[in-house]
C-alpha cells in the first residue's frame, strides 16, 4: 500500500477514533489515549493490530510504550513503514 504522509495521518486518526469510540474533534496530536480518553491495554493492542493490517507493517509490542497519543503512533508507523 502506498499512502502519502498526510493521508497516513488521517487514516491513523480514523483507526484510533474508531477503536477508542471518539469523535475526530475530541482527540489531538498529543492528547493521551489512556489518561485523556480512557483506553486500556486491550484497546492499545487493538490499535496496534489494526495498524499492522492497514499498513501491512510489523510493529513490535515493545513500541506500545510510545504509542500513547497520535503523535507517538504516527512516528512508530512511519518507522515500521520505513523498515519494510
Amino acid at each position, binding site marked *: 500500500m502506498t499512502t502519502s504522509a498526510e493521508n497516513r495521518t488521517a487514516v491513523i486518526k480514523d483507526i484510533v477514533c474508531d477503536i477508542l469510540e471518539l469523535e475526530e474533534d475530541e482527540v489531538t496530536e498529543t492528547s493521551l489515549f489512556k489518561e485523556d480518553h480512557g483506553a486500556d491495554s*486491550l484497546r492499545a*493492542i487493538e490499535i496496534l493490530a489494526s495498524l499492522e493490517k492497514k499498513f501491512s507493517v510489523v510493529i513490535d509490542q515493545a513500541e506500545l510504550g510510545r504509542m500513547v497519543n497520535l503523535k507517538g503512533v504516527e512516528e512508530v508507523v512511519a518507522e515500521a513503514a520505513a523498515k519494510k
Partner: protein
Amino acid sequence: MRATATSNGSAPPAHRVVLTGFGVFSSIGVGAAEFAEGLRAGRSGAKPITRFETEGFAHANGCEVVGFEPDRWIRNLDIDELGPATRFSVAAARMAIDHAGLDETYLRERRGLISIGTTDGESHDLDRLVETEINHGPEKMDPVVARRVAPSRLATSVAHELRLHDVEAVTIPTACAAGNYAIGYGFDAVRTGEVEFALCGGADAMCRKTFAGFYRLGTIAPDHCRPFDKDRKGILTGEGAGVLVLETLESAVRRGATIYAEILGYGLNCDAAHPVAPNQSSIARCMELALENAGVKPDQVDLVSAHGTGTKANDVTETRAVRDVYGSEPPRTVSLKSMLGHSMGAASALAAIACALAITNDFVPPTINHRETDPECEIDCVPNEAVEAQLQIVQNNGMAFGGNNAVVILAKYEEQAS
C-alpha cells in the same frame, strides 16, 4: 456455598468427600502413574505445535498430548461424532472410573453428577467450520463436525458413553479456572449427600483461535513457559483433560477403594474488574473464601499450586495475593504450567490431580525452566527439581479472564477428620 454451612450447627450433616480415581491426558503423561512420574521428573510438554498451521507466527510452541488413542477408552459412542475436546473428556472419565475400580453397572444404580470445565469447548471444530465457510461457502461445512460443536457435550457425552441415567451432566465454561469450578460443584453435591459420586474435571483441545488470541495479546512465550522468572515471556497453550472421581467417604470405605486425597473445601468469586487483567485483592479474597470453607488456617497449608501462567501480570499479582493471605513466609508456591503449558479448562483439574498425587507420593512438583526468580515474585517456586516432602494440606489456584477465580483445598486422607 457459605462457610457457615460447615461451622453452623444447623447445617445438614455433611459427608466427607474423597478422591478415589483419576483420568489424565496431559502433555507430560497419560494416566495417573505416568503423570506423577512426569511431575516428579520435571518433564516439559513443550514442542512445536502440530494441530494447526502455524505459518505466519514468529514462534509456535505448545504442549500437545502425544499418542492419544480415543478408541482405547471410548467404547459405546462413535468417535467421529465427538469433537476433540469431548474425546478428551469422555476418555478421561472412562479412565478415571477404571482407576477408581468402578464399573458402569455399579454407577448406573446410583445417583451421580458429571461436571466438566472448559475454556474453548469445541473451538477447534469451529475454527475448521469457519475456514470452510470462508473458502468454500457454508454449504460445504461438514454436518458431522457442525453437529458436535455444542460445548454441553463435553459432559453429556460422558453420561452417554457410560450409559448413566440418574446424573446431572453439566459443562462449566468459566475459562481457565473452569476445572476448579467443576470440582467445587461436584464437592457440594457429594458433601450434602445429593449424589453418591461425581465425575469432575476439565478438558480442552488445542485450537488456533486461542493460540492466535494470546499471541496477539503478546502473551505467548517464544520457547518455554518460565513462571515467576524475571525473564518470563508468557504462556504456552496446551491441551488435555483431567477427571477426578469424588465420592463420599462412606462409599469409598464400603467398597474398599484406594483413597488418594480428601477435598476439604473451595472458594469462588468473580470480580469482573477487567477483561484480562487479574485483580490482586479479589484473588486474595478467593483464597480466604476457600480456606474458610475448608475450615483451614493459612499456617496449616504446606503447598500452593499456583495458577502460575508465566505472564508478567499474573505472576506478580498472584504471588502478592498469596503474601496478602499467608504473610511474609508463604508456603512453597509452584506452577505446573511450567511443565504442562496452559491447558485452559483442563488446567486446574490437572493441577488438582497433581496436588493429590503430590500428597500421596510425598513430593513437591517443581517449577521448571527456571533461571532467576523475579524479585517481584517473592515466593519459593521450587525451581527445576522436585522436593521430597510430607504434605498435609495443599491449595490449588485457578484464575480466569473476567476475574473468575476458583480455589480448591485438598488434604491427605486421615481416618480422623482434620
